[in-house]
């Protein structure tokens, strides 16, 4: 692996890789290990291999996905670990964001996302958080374009229904 390519394409997306690994493993420790292992693997990969790569991000995300799944399977980790503690909470970004209820609701949305079925969870993560194209998501998750769209639609629908129900419930109290 060429150092220039590594610095230009790989290193800047380390946060994306970490978030994706975290989404799959549910553990910050595991996710950190995954990112380091993926980085090492890429760094040691032969130059000819990296010449064939067209989309660095999708390629790295695929490696991250595979490594994360390996780890999750081998250690039978559960993905229920909360992501709340890792999230930065900017103050005053919205006139609502500072209210306690919205803070709780945002945390609840995160839990709702984490509780989605795996495919929906990963598709929504790659689209709404990492902003990948449908084609890239299909490549990373090794599924068809149709499956990407169906899973994204279902995931957003579920979150919308659950969020609306929660907000209405709060309103009636």
């Amino acid at each position, binding site marked *: 692996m060429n150092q220039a390519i590594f610095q230009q394409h790989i290193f800047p997306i380390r946060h994306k890789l970490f*978030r994706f690994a975290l989404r799959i493993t549910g553990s910050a420790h595991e996710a950190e290990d995954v990112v380091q292992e993926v980085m090492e693997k890429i760094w040691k990969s032969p130059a000819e291999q990296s010449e064939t790569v067209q989309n660095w991000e999708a390629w790295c995300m695929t490696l991250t996905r595979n490594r994360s799944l390996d780890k999750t399977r081998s250690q039978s980790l559960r993905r229920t670990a909360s992501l709340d503690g890792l999230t930065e909470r900017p103050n005053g970004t919205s006139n609502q964001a500072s209210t306690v209820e919205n803070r709780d609701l945002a945390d609840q949305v995160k839990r709702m996302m984490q509780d989605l079925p795996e495919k929906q969870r990963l598709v929504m993560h790659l689209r709404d958080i990492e902003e990948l194209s449908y084609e890239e998501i299909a490549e990373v998750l090794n599924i068809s374009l149709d499956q990407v769209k169906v899973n994204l639609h279902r995931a957003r629908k579920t979150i919308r229904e659950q969020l609306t129900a929660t907000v209405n419930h709060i309103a009636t109290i």
Partner: protein
Amino acid sequence: MKNFSDIQALLDRYWEGETTLEEERILKAYFGSGEVDERLHAIAPLFQALREEQNIQYAKTRTAPLKPVMFNWQRLAVAASAALLLSAGLWWWTGKEKQATEYVVHQPAPETRQDTQLKSSALPETNEKSTAPTEIAQPQVATKEPVKKRKKAELPKPKTEAIDPETEAAMEEIKAALALVSSKLKKGKQEAVKGAIHLENVEKISRIRSEG
């Protein structure tokens, strides 16, 4: 800044999964702007959650997870002490054996006979147990002569009786050391299992708490 109806239209398409990445960025920017229409407040937490998730960063601080390292240290300490005890015991054992061999080789020497007789009289109770260790020690001493003959010839002699208390003491010492090591190993293993179960329980409880 987009007005309410524009955003509402974008949202409708967002739920259906029909928005482009650019349109989704417009939605995110709108909900992050701090000027969200009241009618859309119910949806705001979703975009707040997405924004916060996007801010999670990779910051590797540890080189290795803490738990396994502690585990290894414990194991290493147990293994090292076991190895130390074993090697010390072996060193002592071989030293005693060498001494014993010398005694047998220099059998005719009258001085050693006196010495050993004194020793055997000093420790009379050990003589009874002497048969087992001599059987182990003798094949190493007897190089060419038939074992049966040597046994018969040597057993009544004070030489072998004198060697026995020492070798036996060495044996007992090593047995005790090995018993200690094995008991420590068992105990350590049990402690490790207990610790692992405890950690699992703590993790379960914290998980249940965070979910509840």
